[in-house]
């Protein structure tokens, strides 16, 4: 079987779910004839028509709200943010209306909001964001952020079939840079389950999305240069978070480094740290440390962006520190 890119895996999931369920339809800006800014939806409108691959006005609140309304009526809409940075335009309706619908009104709201996220692409402050932490604080939303092509396909299929709203973050750096052979058949990855990307016994790196690959590089370097056995846990789902897998890796290595691309303050790493404190404090042999982006808007110039974002060398240095503590 041919290898498939992360982007193509997402497109396959959309195709297969639209074939499988006539209630699934896509909404977004320029997703129809043009196929989307990154061509994720290329070919979808030709196959499924303009009503099921629907070009919207520039109105994130408008079409996210409309997705909720359609979802109440039994549809399963998939909204594309042209860049995930623009999800903040729909923040109010997502957190106030969509996230609360089931709880306050027993209204089903099965919908997906997906879009290209993340940096390392010289996108500047408004085409590089990782806003997942902003939504982790809202009960009622689910959040996934896959690192591999296989997980991208399987998690998107699970997200479309989920009975609640799932925010599906796609890392644009990975779109065409990674490829793999995908499992055959109806490949669905359950939401809320982490994956051990690399086994190890001296140090755990807990991460997700593009930094999962940097963590793997760092793990290899630490093994090569320091003889350290490093475990890498790829969370895949941010909400719900796989506490069992987190606790299991902490108990195995007793040393934890958390790595994410989003800014450090108020980021996911702080939440993971608190959970480890609650669930496995006595197993720790070292302070939990974080490697994340500096607390600045993401700048454009390569020299600036590279400084702000976590790099493989940062993970190596931090991992070495935690391992030696």
């Amino acid at each position, binding site marked *: 079987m041919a290898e498939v890119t992360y982007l193509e895996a997402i497109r396959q999931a959309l195709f297969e779910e639209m074939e499988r369920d006539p209630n699934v*339809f896509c909404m977004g800006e320029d997703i129809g004839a043009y196929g989307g800014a990154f061509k994720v939806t290329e070919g979808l409108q030709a196959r499924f028509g303009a*009503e*099921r691959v*629907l070009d*919207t*006005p520039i*109105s*994130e*609140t*408008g*079409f*996210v*709200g*409309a*997705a*909720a*309304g*359609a*979802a*109440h*009526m*039994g*549809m399963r*809409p998939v909204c594309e943010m042209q860049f995930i940075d623009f999800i903040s335009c729909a923040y*109010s*309706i997502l957190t*106030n*209306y969509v996230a*609360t619908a*089931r*709880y*306050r*009104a*027993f*209204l*089903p709201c099965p919908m997906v909001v997906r879009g290209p996220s993340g940096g390392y692409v010289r996108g500047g402050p408004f085409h590089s964001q990782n806003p997942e932490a902003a939504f982790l604080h809202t*009960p*009622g939303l*689910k959040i996934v952020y896959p690192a591999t092509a296989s997980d991208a396909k399987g998690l998107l299929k699970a997200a479309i079939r*989920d*009975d*609640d709203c799932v925010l599906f973050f796609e890392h644009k750096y990975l779109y065409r840079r990674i490829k793999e052979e995908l499992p055959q058949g109806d490949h669905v990855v359950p939401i809320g389950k982490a994956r051990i990307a690399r086994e190890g016994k001296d140090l755990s790196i807990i991460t997700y999305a593009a930094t999962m690959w940097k963590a793997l590089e760092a793990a290899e370097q630490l093994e090569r240069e320091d003889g350290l056995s490093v475990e890498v846990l790829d969370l895949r789902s941010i909400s*719900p978070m796989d506490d069992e897998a987190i606790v299991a890796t902490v108990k195995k290595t007793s040393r934890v480094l958390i790595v994410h691309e989003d800014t450090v303050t108020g980021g996911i790493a702080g939440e993971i740290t608190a959970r480890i404190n*609650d*669930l*496995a*404090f*006595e*197993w720790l042999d070292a302070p939990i440390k974080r490697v994340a982006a500096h607390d600045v808007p993401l700048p454009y110039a390569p020299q600036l962006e590279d400084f702000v974002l976590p790099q493989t060398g940062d993970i190596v240095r931090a991992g070495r520190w935690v391992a030696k503590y």
Partner: protein
Amino acid sequence: MAASSATAPSRADSTDLTRDQLLELYYWMRLTRSLEERLVNLYRQTKVVGGLFRSLGQEACAVGSAYALRREDVLSPLIRNLGSMLVKGATPLEVLRQYMAKGDSPTRGRELNIHFGDVEERNFIGQISHLGDMVPVMAGVTLSFKLRREPRVGLVYVGDGATSTGAFHEGINLAAVQRCPLVVIVENNGYAYSTPTSLQCAASRLVDKAAGYGIAGARADGNDVLATYRVTREAVDRARRGEGASLVELTTYRRKGHAEHDNQSYVPAGEIERWTAEDDPLDRYAKVLTGQEGVTAAELEALDTRITGEIDRATDEADASPPPEPRDCLVGIYADPPEAPALWYRDGIRTAVDRHERPAGWGTHDG
């Protein structure tokens, strides 16, 4: 703001309303007013645990417009649309339980006042407090009708205030472009909380916004229940014929404050009194019924008596309803998982520290 000239409501030109239906309109309007009066009593007895929102003087707006819908059509009410919800099948018992935060209220005590809905049978959707948000939601509800070729229509209310929001604009524009079968009713009642319409919008007629969206617009006297019914019915019929969205401005007047606590100090002297005396929608409609429609005063009194009895029975039943079970607050945030855990200090300490999983000899605790 001046009361409109106190003309009696006119009978619809080619009305399809029977005498029974004309009386039904009166029933819903009177039920709305009487139920709110009962809620005021319960509020003063502190049995309404939150705020109380009135629609005094706006009953014709709510009832006449909702009456233009079929059962399968979906209605999205706002805080002054108790009457619309009653027309759509909400019951006084549900409303009373909801205001009194009872465990068997439609939202099991999760939401306040008339923030509740039913999309299974009666087809109205619970609103949220963020004004304008229901417009995009209803654009999506009606988009689903269009995609499925269902001959159903959606109706969403906004006030003069909500027309200032981005959500209103994005929602109505999307519905317009997609030719969704949606009727947007702008109830212009003169005030958004304390802010007069003149500080909300520089346009003198909110209906003129329709032109900007390329959709049909109409305007009517919202205190004339038959005019309200007629103008909404035309928009609903147009939507059902596949001719797309429209905007209807209903002019009316909010005689009470934003909520019961509001003393309306910002209202010019005499304004409320003028509307009360000259342009009360129930008084106006009663005159039509007893005049040209030949309804007797005794018939109307009989309806009033029936309504009082219904509200009395519902009040007794709601009063006897149990409060919610506190732990129900953890149920149903998601379909899966179906329930969230209580925080550790509510369920006893179950952390690693408490369980002392590591051997005492490791020295990290006192064993």
